[in-house]
């Protein structure tokens, strides 16, 4: 039973699809026409020509299969994709065959948006992939909306050797990705102007202005941070360590549920994402708060990704945040006063 099911599954999900090109259709048409002529005339030389055409078709199938066989296409999607911004996607074509080179393969972008592109952008041609070697191909793709997005993927095709048939493998790179809201650059000046803030010292290393510590010079330290006076006193190079500037630790508060207008909602989420990115890059701690959307204060890239994920998946109908549980240190730090920026979702 399993075998039958597997056979049926294979029947409806072939490893490769094959489709004649325009030249291929002509070839088939001429073969059929000549076949009819050969049968009706009994002329063996016409049979000879029909045989040549059929042989050409068979050889085309053999060589194209030889070219496609053993090719692995592995998609490479970036960790962060922002709506409306080109993301660099890629795929690695690996030739797992032990002996034969794969000739003339094309990576075809299947995204509907790609169909509008010129063929040079939609099809990435690889002249050959030697046995045991890999080729990386990359392309830009712009996903217009935030949220969960299933990539339409790419597939390997080939018209090798005669250009009569297009043989295509199954699509790769079809997994779901989370597209973050569109972000815009936010200047430091704008950040400072935003909202009222309560300042507090956080006594930790960072990129602020106050001195945190002096320590011995280690290879790789920025020479600009050498503290010459202390170095002179200790007769060894000393460098300054700065305290993190926590004056910008911020709570981003989403106001409203965004049910009044999609445009205002998207604008608000985009603003929140932009501020979150700018603040985290500036070294600030950021907390996200809103209706059914709570990401406690945190720092760093992983924290930023959590917030952006929450914003990307914000749903007015069934909002669900996906916050990671705050670590103990971050929980302790959350009692520091934060400045609050309110963002209206309308």
């Amino acid at each position, binding site marked *: 039973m399993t*075998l039958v099911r597997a056979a049926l599954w294979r029947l409806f999900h072939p490893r490769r699809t094959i489709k004649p090109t325009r030249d291929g259709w002509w070839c088939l048409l001429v073969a059929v026409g000549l076949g009819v002529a050969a049968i009706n005339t009994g002329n063996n030389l016409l049979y000879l020509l029909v045989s040549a055409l*059929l042989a050409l078709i068979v050889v085309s199938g053999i060589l194209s299969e030889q070219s496609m066989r053993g090719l692995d296409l592995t998609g490479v999607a970036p960790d962060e994709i922002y709506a409306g911004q080109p993301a660099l996607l890629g795929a690695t074509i690996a030739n797992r065959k032990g002996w034969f*080179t794969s000739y003339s393969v094309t990576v075809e972008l299947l995204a509907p948006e790609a169909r509008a592109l010129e063929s040079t952008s939609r099809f990435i041609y690889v002249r050959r992939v030697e046995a045991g070697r890999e080729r990386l191909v990359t392309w830009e793709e712009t996903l217009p909306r935030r949220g969960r997005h299933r990539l339409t993927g790419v597939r390997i095709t080939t018209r090798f*050797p005669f250009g009569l048939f297009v043989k295509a493998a199954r699509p790769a790179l079809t997994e779901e990705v989370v597209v973050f809201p569109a972000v815009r650059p936010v200047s430091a000046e704008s950040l400072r102007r935003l909202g009222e803030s309560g300042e507090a010292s956080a006594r930790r290393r960072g990129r602020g202005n106050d001195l945190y510590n002096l320590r011995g010079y280690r290879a790789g330290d920025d020479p600009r941070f050498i503290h010459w006076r202390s170095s002179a006193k200790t007769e060894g190079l000393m460098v300054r360590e700065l305290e993190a500037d926590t004056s910008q630790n911020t709570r981003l508060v989403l106001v409203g549920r965004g049910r009044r207008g999609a445009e205002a909602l998207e604008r608000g989420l985009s603003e929140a994402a932009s501020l979150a990115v700018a603040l985290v890059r500036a070294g600030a701690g950021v907390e996200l708060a809103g209706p059914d959307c709570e990401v406690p204060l945190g720092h760093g890239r992983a924290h930023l990704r959590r917030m952006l994920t929450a914003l990307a998946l914000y749903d007015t109908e069934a909002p669900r945040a996906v916050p990671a549980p705050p670590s103990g240190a971050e929980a302790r730090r959350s009692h520091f006063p934060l400045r609050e920026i309110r963002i209206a979702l309308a």
Partner: protein
Amino acid sequence: MPALLALRLVTYLMVCTGVAALYLANLIGAAGAVLVVLAILVSWGHEHARERGAVRPALGWSLVAAAAVAIAIDLFYLAYSLLDGMVHLLLFLILLRLFARRGLRDLRDAGLLSFFMLVAAASISFSLGFLLVYITFLLLGTWMLILNHVVTELEQAGWPGDAATVARRVFFRGPLTQVSLVAAAITLALAAGLFFVIPRVGQAALPLRASIGRMVTGFSDNVDLGSFGDIESDRSVVMRVYLADEGLDPTTLPGLRWRGVVFDQFDGRTWSSVAAPRRYMQRTVAGDFGVGLPRGTGPMVRQEIYLEPLGSDAVFAAPRAVRLEMRSPTLVVDDMGGLTVSDSGARLHYVVESEIDTPGRPLGAGHRPSVVMTAAERARYLQLPPLAPEIARLAREVTAGSVDAEAAAGRISAHLSTNYRYTLALKRQTALAPLEEFLFVRRSGNCEYFAAAMAVMLRSVGVPARVAAGFQQGEWNQYGRYFMVRLSDAHAWVEVYLDGRGWVAFDPSPRAEAETEETPGRLSLYLDAARMRWYRYVVNWSLRDQVQLAASFHRQATDARVALAWPRDWRVSPAVGTGAGLAVVVALVWWLGRHGHVLPRSGPTARIPAFYERALRLLARRGLAPGVAETARQFASRVGERTPDRAAAFDRLTGYYERARFGDAALSEAERQDALRSLAALNARS
């Protein structure tokens, strides 16, 4: 060589090959072929001239328009046939593509159009040269298609820069060339295989134009004396007779001839058979014609005859033909045993079974001529025009004392062959009647004169006789086991009616002594044997041959099976056979599953392990489900927060899940047991 240049070169060579095919099929003459090739060469250089602006587009298009009009007129009014008109149109289109070439597509189209030149040639040509053209075209065609594919893809990809110049920069060398050669070789081998196995199920319903071939004098209803003179110096091979019986020694068949037409009426200059009664025969269901009955006068010889296109309706065969296999639906048989078929295509290949008359062998019991010659028939074969009385006198002198007709015929034959000289110089020297001049003045002539003289002399002494024309047996080609009959083997002889034996052949011509033996070289024999095989195995390959081939394979397979069987009485018991079959099936399923050909790939990401699915179901009952964008670990953390007592168990399950699904190694037995225990812990009531 740059790919684009190689592509151009190969395409031009393909077109030239197509032109060669047309020339071989006589669809264009030598002058036409040279003109077309010159035009092709001009088109090669024309692109540079066009790029320099040396050719005005208006002038070019005017020429094209004029040529198009000329081709249209040719197609509908001037061409010898529609096929000729289409060929001219095809040549025009190809040259137009080459001259007005703008891109790769035009070049490719010219190459592909040239295939139709082969199609046109195939419809009427049977020459061995076609094979050479075919192989060359196939090699060039596969090359052209691969080159075109590569260059087109590069151009479309715009790699690595300007598309127009890319193709010129990319060099076509190394491994891809080898691939092209391999592709061409496989295509050729496959085409050969397919050719032999594609079933010849069809019946010829739309006969294409079969070339009539050169008109040959001497094989029609009316033949003037001396008409063989022109052709007897022509060494072209016109007929190949393959003797199917491999055990037959050709040297045991002396005096073998290929009889074509028979003449009964003579007017002093011309022999004819116009008045001979004829009957039409229909082919039997078995596909043959029964044209006679065996009389037991000699061995039955099966001849497979391949005739070059010859301008005669006669069907040539060793006398006496008994059975004929031919593609023609009808056959005309005259009462002298002359066979004619009007379908020139059908005459190109046929099989005849003949009973060879062995001189002196008595007729078998019950096989004497069933009908005694009637007075009217006797009068017919004794018919003579007004002739010089010297001829009759000479006949009486020669046959004086002969006891019977056979003796008389023998004496006349001997007289002519010993006292007269064989020559092809047939210039008239007097105003006398041709036969009189031959017998009394010139005393030399070709076989027709000898045959005519003997027939007339026999008739003048009251012995019924007639003249038969055909070919001598020709040269035996030991490489192909067939007789190679040349046009110069055209021959005439006499058939004499002998009471009690019927018609018996006599050849009074001393031709054999006169002819110098020209032994063909070994190479020429090899080539002709190749040509014979071409006719035998390609041009005339039929359903019957396919059946024979299949039977031969079956026989050989059976022989091999018997030869390999050891011990000879060993038989596979059903149990062993079933077991072996099952083992093969299991091995096949395993192999296919492992290589992913039939079963869905069972890789690490195929599906969620069952234990994790169950864990998810258990948690779902408690209102805990993974988020859409939540990873397994994030979900495990969340589960830990909500139900701390189950955190450890689910953490372990998550770890096993990640290993089972994303890791390369399967879980060990201990790990599986641990996973089950964790599952039980997860399910335990708190």
